[in-house]
């Protein structure tokens, strides 16, 4: 990353922590909840969310849910347990192997062919979110999201799977900023140092799958999204044209994942278009 961009993306960690913990406290309690529940994968994003939530709400008002699948790397569960231990927060382990396998056993038979890795991965992500929403009702706790700004922009996530949540404290932080804040808050070093992975199949890493590094993505996204430079202008600053175009196109293509379902307009006031209220209405 170029030094001037790196400097712009350098966080003031204590200020950001105070805003995000305030956000969690305020938005959880004002809709009548006291607790939060979230999936803890062993990766840096959910670890950071755990640290923020524990600081915001207190250890006994957050609940981590660890949801391994049979092909998940054992180190993922191990790292997730390190977070649980470091924070001293309650946790539950729910193995999602049986429901996911049962589903594909039936559907593969009905369709007459085997699901590919993408479908299986999406199903796992949604199985986890279904589980979280069920536990949300069981525990009377709001579901926290753990997707960062880079992932959300790139659409590198499953709609109504890991992209779903009631509140997302880290969705305006680029991946490189997630790393900074996680280091500041004391996320265990084995989590800080490992390659980012959705851990949906063996040896998967995000960067291998995307075809570029998160640092490259952050650098280009920041200039395009935040500084409003055009793709041409970014290319003229010396970035590879193919990379810039690939990232911009990915963001555009995945816009549908970031929006609520669209509604066909018939009346004078349509939800989402001209029926406008904040979600925090009256809270």
């Amino acid at each position, binding site marked *: 990353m170029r030094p001037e961009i790196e400097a712009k*993306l*350098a966080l003031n960690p204590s200020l950001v922590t*105070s*805003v995000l913990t305030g*956000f969690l406290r305020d938005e959880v309690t004002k809709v009548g909840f006291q607790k939060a529940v979230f999936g803890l994968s062993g990766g840096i994003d959910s670890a950071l969310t755990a640290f923020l939530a524990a600081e915001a709400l207190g250890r006994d008002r957050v609940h981590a849910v660890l949801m391994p699948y049979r092909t998940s790397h054992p180190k993922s569960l191990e790292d997730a347990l390190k977070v649980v231990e470091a924070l001293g927060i309650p946790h539950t382990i729910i193995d999602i192997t049986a429901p996911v396998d049962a589903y594909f056993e039936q559907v593969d038979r009905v369709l007459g062919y085997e699901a590919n890795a993408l479908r299986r991965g999406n199903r796992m992500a949604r199985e986890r979110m279904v589980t979280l929403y069920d536990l949300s009702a069981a525990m009377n706790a709001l579901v926290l999201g753990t997707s960062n700004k880079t992932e959300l922009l790139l659409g590198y996530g499953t709609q109504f799977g890991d992209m779903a949540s009631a509140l997302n404290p880290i969705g305006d932080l680029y991946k490189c900023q997630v790393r900074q804040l996680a280091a500041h808050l004391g996320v265990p070093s084995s989590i800080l140092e490992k390659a980012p992975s959705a851990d949906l199949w063996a040896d998967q890493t995000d960067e291998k799958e995307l075809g570029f590094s998160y640092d490259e993505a952050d650098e280009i996204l920041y200039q395009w999204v935040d500084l409003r430079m055009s793709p041409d202008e970014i290319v003229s600053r010396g970035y590879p044209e193919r990379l810039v175009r690939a990232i911009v196109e990915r963001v555009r293509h995945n816009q549908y994942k970031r929006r609520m379902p669209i509604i066909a307009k018939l009346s004078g006031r349509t939800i989402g278009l001209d029926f406008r209220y*904040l979600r925090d*209405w*009256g*809270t």
Partner: protein
Amino acid sequence: MDVAWSAFRVAIAQFAPKLGDVSANLSRHLEYVNEAKQVNAQVLVFPELGLTGYQTQDLTLEVARHVSHPDIQRLIQASQELDVIFSFVEEADDCRFFVTAAYASGGRLVHRHRKLYLPTYGMFDERRYFAPGDRIRTFSAQGGQAGVLICEDAWHLSSPYLLAVQGASIIYVPASSPWRNTMAASDFGSHAFWRQLLQVYAQLCGCFFVFANRVGYEDGVHFYGGSGVMGPDGEWVAEGPASESALVVADLDFRMVRRARYTTPLLRDERVRLVLAEMQEAVRRRSTDEAGD
């Protein structure tokens, strides 16, 4: 001009209004009036849209109040023992809606300021719901001539200028300023902007600025507080905390205005006729290529 170089105590209610719940917010206002009386404040200032919350959107129609509305009259009545500046969605006789700040004193409405500049950029969408005010005037209040600017109004250079040349020695700024662009370690975004702005304005105009900013979150948007009083020397007289509710109290000594204006007599040397002539010329030239206010 007959100016009594007085001193008085001002209190700022830095709090988080409940979005769209006027009666809950009115109760909070009345509680703060009592609290301010207990600390012997003579003026109490509330943030922008303290009675309604900031992003009223389609709630605008329900939360709007004519000045004759019992809710507004109740707050005006609450100014028997101390002056109160509060802000609400004002419904005019012709059913236009304004972001208004009212100055009430002795149980009477003394002055009304309707927000002049309604931002529509970035996360803002005020002009969709509100009509802009069309005048900026000083009025006689505690400490001499006073003026009111609502949030974005103060981001326009001409606003404090117009109040200063009318003789304002104190300018109240009710605000609902969200924190943004604050990620970078080197950039505190809107908070830094406000601090610099108030410091420079106070020194250029030789007057006090009372900045009353709200706290709390609306759909993830964070209002940072940081209310306070900036003196005519460019130093904070009092400064509230960031992000938490507080009653910020400050004692204002108006002899500071006198000294500042003697030491750095910028207002004395101001050439209003030159400014007027040049503004007329600038407007004439501008209107040849484009329409504009």
